[in-house]
């Protein structure tokens, strides 16, 4: 471009932008995706309550025991607290600290993986008593918790991808949209667990 030519592009930051300069399109995309996924879970939980209150007054039906809470009492804080290191990881990279980003991601990963492993044990115990093919309760129980577990697994895969890129030096204070998006997703997955905990695990004990 010669000196006499004007600029051909405005002086603006290039997307994806981070904390300053407004929210990027990628971030909005993740937000809308989360709306969809949240609706999926809302529909699943509504279906659970519909079948429950339309059906047999004893819940769970067919002699199935009420959900055991011992493992859940460990799994729940493990998962919910994992949002902490994830949030810390995001804050760190916003300030440009790649080392803390990596550490935060790793801790979150380990906590999430622990959750899934414990869920595996929980399934092992439950499946001895009933399966998704036993009755509608079984179908709902395993589908809803399994769908959530799938979301946790996908979150862990995304976490690994972030770690991989963090080790390759791809993230900085200016460029870290993916970290923001995955963090948002991870908080979402944790929040869904609260609803599942209350609906599927606690409510049969509270409402006879």
């Amino acid at each position, binding site marked *: 471009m010669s000196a006499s030519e*004007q*600029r*051909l*592009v*405005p002086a*603006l*930051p*290039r*997307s*994806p*932008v981070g904390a300053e*300069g*407004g929210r*990027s*399109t*990628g971030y*909005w*995309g993740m937000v*809308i*995706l989360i*709306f*969809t*996924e949240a*609706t*999926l879970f*809302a*529909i*699943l939980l509504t*279906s659970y309550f*519909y*079948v429950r209150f*339309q*059906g*047999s007054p004893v819940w769970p*039906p*067919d002699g199935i025991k009420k959900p055991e809470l011992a493992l859940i009492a460990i799994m729940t804080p493990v998962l919910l607290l994992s949002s902490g290191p994830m949030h810390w990881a995001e804050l760190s990279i916003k300030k440009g600290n790649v080392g803390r980003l990596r550490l935060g991601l790793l801790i979150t990963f380990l906590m999430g993986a622990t959750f899934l492993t414990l869920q595996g044990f929980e399934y092992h115990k439950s499946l001895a008593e009933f399966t*998704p*093919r*036993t*009755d*509608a*309760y*079984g*179908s*709902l129980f395993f*589908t809803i918790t399994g769908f959530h577990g799938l979301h946790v697994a996908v979150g862990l895969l995304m976490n690994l*991808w972030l770690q991989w*890129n963090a080790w390759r030096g*791809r993230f900085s204070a200016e*460029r*870290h*949209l*993916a970290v923001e998006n995955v963090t948002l997703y991870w908080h979402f997955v944790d929040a869904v667990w609260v609803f599942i905990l209350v609906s599927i695990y606690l409510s049969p004990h509270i409402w006879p």
Partner: protein
Amino acid sequence: MATTVADRLEEIWEEKPGLGSWLDTVDHKRIGIRYVYTAFAFFLAGGLEATIIRAQLARPEETLVRPEAYNQLFTMHGITMIFFFVTPMLFGFGNYFVPLMIGARDMAFPRLNAFGYWVFLFAGLFMYAGYAAGHAPNDGWFNYFPLASKQFSPDINIDFYTLGLIFLGISSTAGSINFIVTIFKLRAPGMSISRVPLFCWAILATAFSVIFALPSLTVANAMAALDRLFGFHFFDVAKGGSVILWQHLFWIFGHPDVYIIFLPAVGIVSSVVPVFSRRKLVGYVWLALATMATAIIGFGVWVHHMFAVGLPSLSLTFFSAASMLITIPSAVQIFAWLATIIGGRPVLATPFLFILGFLFLFVLGGVTGVMFAAVPFDQQITDSYFVVAHFHYVLFGGAVFPIFAGIYYWFPKMFGRMLHQGLGKLSFWLMFVGFNLTFFPMHILGLLGMPRRVYTYPAGLGWDLYNSLETIGAYILALGVLVTVGNFVWSVSMRRGLLAGPDPWGGDTLEWATDSPPPPYNFVEIPTVKSGEPLWDQPELRAMNERVIDRERTLATGHDTLGTTVLDAELESILPMPHGSFVPILAAAGLGLIFGGLIAHLEVVIGIGAALLVGSVLAWFRDQGDV
């Protein structure tokens, strides 16, 4: 100097012709045209199904079509028209025109856009593979249980339905995310919320409706697939499941779906009415709010499809009230458009004729809709030919007529040539007369007691004459559609139509500020918008190609468009746009293999599909470069 800039942009944005470019394009205009072509092909398929149905029903106890075949035909007619024609057609127009109307160079996520199209195509082929297998879905487009269960439908017909719709849903969701983010973030500077064209408002309302409604259908179909393929018991009454649960989940999606169909069509109406009335729309704010209100209230009326199920009276009275309430926003829209027409100087060109047809037919369908809100009357006429009449008036009259208006209005922009006006008017009259002859008598048939979804009926009940008339009407309607097809072939394919130029109609929105068809980069510069009718109020925008207003806005240094703030459209960022990529079609193919493997019970195919999908997704994020 403007030529140099345009040349630079051409170099940056051109897509070289050839098979490779055809497969890897991410240009919203090419993708939009593909949606339009493919959706129209499904329209013809659905129309063929309808003409066979009408031939079978022309006379009592006719034996042209066996019941097995008939039940597949009426089911596929509904599925095709609703899922594979109307919404994709309107998304096609949305794809093409939303970026143009908001002054952007493409959608927010161009590769996601391409992916959405390929998934739509593959899902449509998947659904139609049912016919090839001799087992197309055959339990009606709402697929009630227990008939749809493995016990009563042991063959794979219903699996095409459940899996096919889950597959298609991925496309609809992707498209909706894209529309929302595009309309939020890619508008030209100055296009504040109150200056957004009503077509874009309509697409926005539709996209949000998809986001919140489609999950209900997806969950329902996933549960159905789990019941049928893996022995689960969601809808198995004997094991504590509920068949009414299916109905609720289906209609929680199904009712908003009719607004997903109707609202973009309404957007087309709001685009055409002011241009052909040659005056500004009356009540822009009312129309935008009415669009949103319809979408929102639309989530609260679904039980009116279930008034005969035996639900508690309290439920019925609530949903009756809500179903009546939803009339109000539509009435506001009708009167706003009427006021615009009456206060204007209308030009009776073909696009406008289809809009006039829409206004009449939709109102007629709307008043019968109000009748359905009255529960006791509904309990007589639901599941009868009266409801068939009603929904064809509101869906065909309410969406297809605007689609044809859109075809005659926008094809000149898309293809550079006018469609022949005489043939257009002929097409309109054949369609209008044929439509009314086909569907008006159905009101009477319903009142005479003819139920819907019957492959034949006995003589001597007083139904015969009406059915014969309806069949004649259907063929007239079909002829009217074919006239438009012929018009397209003659005017566009054979290039006999008049050259359109940038603005053949005197339009008010930004798509008319560029060539017909637009260059790959849409506009030489991204303009600053100062009004809701930019082309009427800012004449300098018409000459942008010759005389650049602001060189900074040409973004001629890269493959970029502009990002702005959500409410006021203030300048915010440069958005780099991806070049063509094979990843979208590969990812869609991966999904296709997964669904194909599921229905054929071939685990290997599922595995290959999953690997292809995962690989594509990883490549997708690599493609992005810096994240």
